[in-house]
């Protein structure tokens, strides 16, 4: 779950990372409470690249600021309307640095990633430095080590190290996947300040981070309508352009099935992984979700029951067929409790296909 800038900065401040003294406004008129000029107005959207699209403006006086706030509130950034504007005093930037903490597969644990120059194109930068936090055991010297790798010297080593100490606190305390300060600036007085920040909370950890309760929905602006609905009931759906609805269990099998649909000349309208251990109700919700797409000509169900009980899936399919007797349905259902499921399907009049290639070819033929 990616947080907005002002939310990230709130967590920064709680852990002692300096940020500009900002104010969040939700109506343009609130700008008149701002007393410090020149100021920066930043649209609070989740998508990146807002600066280039006009989402960040500077204002020298209240009238100027009011006009710009109105503009920003009316500005859609890649389909995302701002829910707020963050107003901050304009700061004097002597230097920009990039720094983040995230889990890295290759290092089998968290790493500190930083670059001596901040900026939006950091992913492609050659100057990225890495300091692994082996086994998740952090100690202050790791932040200072990064400081020296960045070429910082003197008091800046301690100042930067101190920022990383606090960033580690943010990272662990909130079960983050990523905490990033970009840019971390050095201001005119030599202080290190987080000018912009990005935090992604690990979604598997939300259940033990009560402070984020109920916040997920408002932080998923980059999803399509069905994708959003799916997410809200733990169904992982990705919308595609075709007319074959795919419902599988497990990411690998779902991807393989999608690949196979393309391979046999079909076009999937979506990709839906119901996950492990889905019961009848969950599968029913998944079926309804796919069926709600009017482009779907045929629904291809491919379930291999391991932790998923085939009987639960069969009952959901039976229910689906009862409601939509004319829907095109190609079903492959194999695995734990397969015989009992077979019986339910027979009784419901749903034919099953045993071989995956056959099932996919059949679905492609129906959809063509």
């Amino acid at each position, binding site marked *: 779950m990616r947080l907005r800038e002002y939310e990230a900065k709130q967590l920064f401040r709680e852990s002692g990372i300096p940020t500009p003294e900002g104010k969040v406004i939700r109506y343009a008129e609130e700008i008149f409470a701002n007393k410090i000029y020149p100021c920066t107005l930043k649209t609070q959207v989740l998508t990146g690249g807002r600066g280039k699209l006009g989402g960040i403006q500077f204002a020298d006086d209240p009238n100027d600021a009011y006009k710009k706030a109105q503009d920003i509130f009316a500005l859609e950034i890649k389909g995302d309307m701002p829910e707020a504007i963050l107003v901050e005093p304009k700061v004097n930037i002597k230097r920009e640095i990039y720094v983040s903490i995230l889990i890295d597969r290759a290092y089998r644990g968290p790493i500190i990633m930083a670059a001596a120059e901040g900026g939006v194109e950091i992913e492609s930068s050659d100057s990225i430095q890495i300091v692994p936090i082996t086994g998740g055991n952090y100690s202050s010297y790791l932040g200072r080590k990064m400081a020296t790798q960045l070429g910082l010297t003197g008091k800046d080593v301690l100042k930067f190290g101190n920022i990383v100490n606090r960033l580690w606190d943010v990272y662990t305390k909130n079960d983050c996947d990523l905490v990033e300060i970009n840019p971390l600036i050095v201001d005119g007085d030599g202080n290190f300040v987080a000018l912009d920040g990005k935090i992604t909370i690990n979604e598997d950890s939300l259940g*033990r981070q009560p402070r984020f309760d109920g916040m997920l929905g408002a932080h998923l602006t980059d999803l399509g309508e069905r994708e959003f609905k799916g997410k809200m009931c733990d169904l992982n759906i990705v919308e595609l352009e075709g007319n074959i609805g795919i419902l599988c269990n*497990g990411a690998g*099998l779902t991807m*393989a099935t999608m690949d196979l649909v393309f391979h046999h000349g079909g076009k999937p309208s979506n990709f839906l992984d119901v*996950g492990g251990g889905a019961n009848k109700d969950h599968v029913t919700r998944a079926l309804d979700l796919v069926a709600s797409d009017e482009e779907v000509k045929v629904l291809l169900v491919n379930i291999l029951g391991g932790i998923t009980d085939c009987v639960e899936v069969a009952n959901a399919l039976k229910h689906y067929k009862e409601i939509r007797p004319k829907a095109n349905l190609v079903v492959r259902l*194999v695995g734990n409790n397969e015989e009992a499921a077979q019986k339910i399907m027979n009784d419901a009049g749903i034919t099953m296909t045993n071989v995956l290639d056959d099932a996919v070819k059949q679905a492609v033929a129906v959809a063509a």
Partner: protein
Amino acid sequence: MSVLINKDTKVIVQGITGGMGKTHTELMQAYGTNIVGGVTPGKGGQEVCGVPVFDSVSEAVEKTGANCSVIFVPPYLALDAALEAIDAGVPLISVITEGLPPQDAVKLHAAAEKKGVLVNGPNCPGIITPGECLIGIHPGSIYMPGRVGLISRSGTLTYEIGLGLKQAGIGLSTAVGIGGDPIIGIDQKISLKLFEEDPDTDIIILVGEIGGTAEEEAAEYIKTNIKKPVIGYIAGRTAPPGKRMGHAGAIISGGKGTAESKQKAFEAAGVQVAVTPSEIVELVKQVLPAMSV
């Protein structure tokens, strides 16, 4: 023969009194796995699925001689359960639990490495040596015993391939479902090494998927360490970049983790790459007669 588990493996189930733990204990028992006990703190002294429940892993190990633990406890309790098994000296642990917070996974694997314990998972289907032993959630009936070793990041796709092979009359020495999480214990390299050393495995199938660089690393490892033929497959060739594919969260981002990159790495390592699951079966069929010559 086989790798990791066989008919002599003595298994305990952590979380045996939970719904999932109980269901899969019964399925494992039905398959023939030697389940010697279960662990649920606070429920010691009960009997579930005909085996004793203990309050702690160390007690279970002491009383049953277990040398393997399968973990079915809820995500936020899984780290503690795994640390308990590591501390109790269990040499092989399979963490079936999905949704373990990544920061917990880091601690789990650091502790396991320190003690030299093999951890399968988390978020994995477990391991099966057909005809001998099943740990985890694989549907046992879709595999048959044989001489092919199977390594897979994906659970259900493992079943798909096992089933395809069985339908073609080909069996497996062992199938290792390594799990789809970013940080796992028994990975592709460890599994490859075990199969290379197993006298009863002739061919290895390596099932990867988009995201990360594990396949590229495995390919490097194969180049210098694996003499047996390896057949590869990568799921997600047609996945749109930037989208998380499924619950396991495979993702192509920043131009990394693409199927092309993995396919190239496989090919450079002499791994034959199948484009569909059924092609894997075809490739195995081609290699098998060549070997019996």
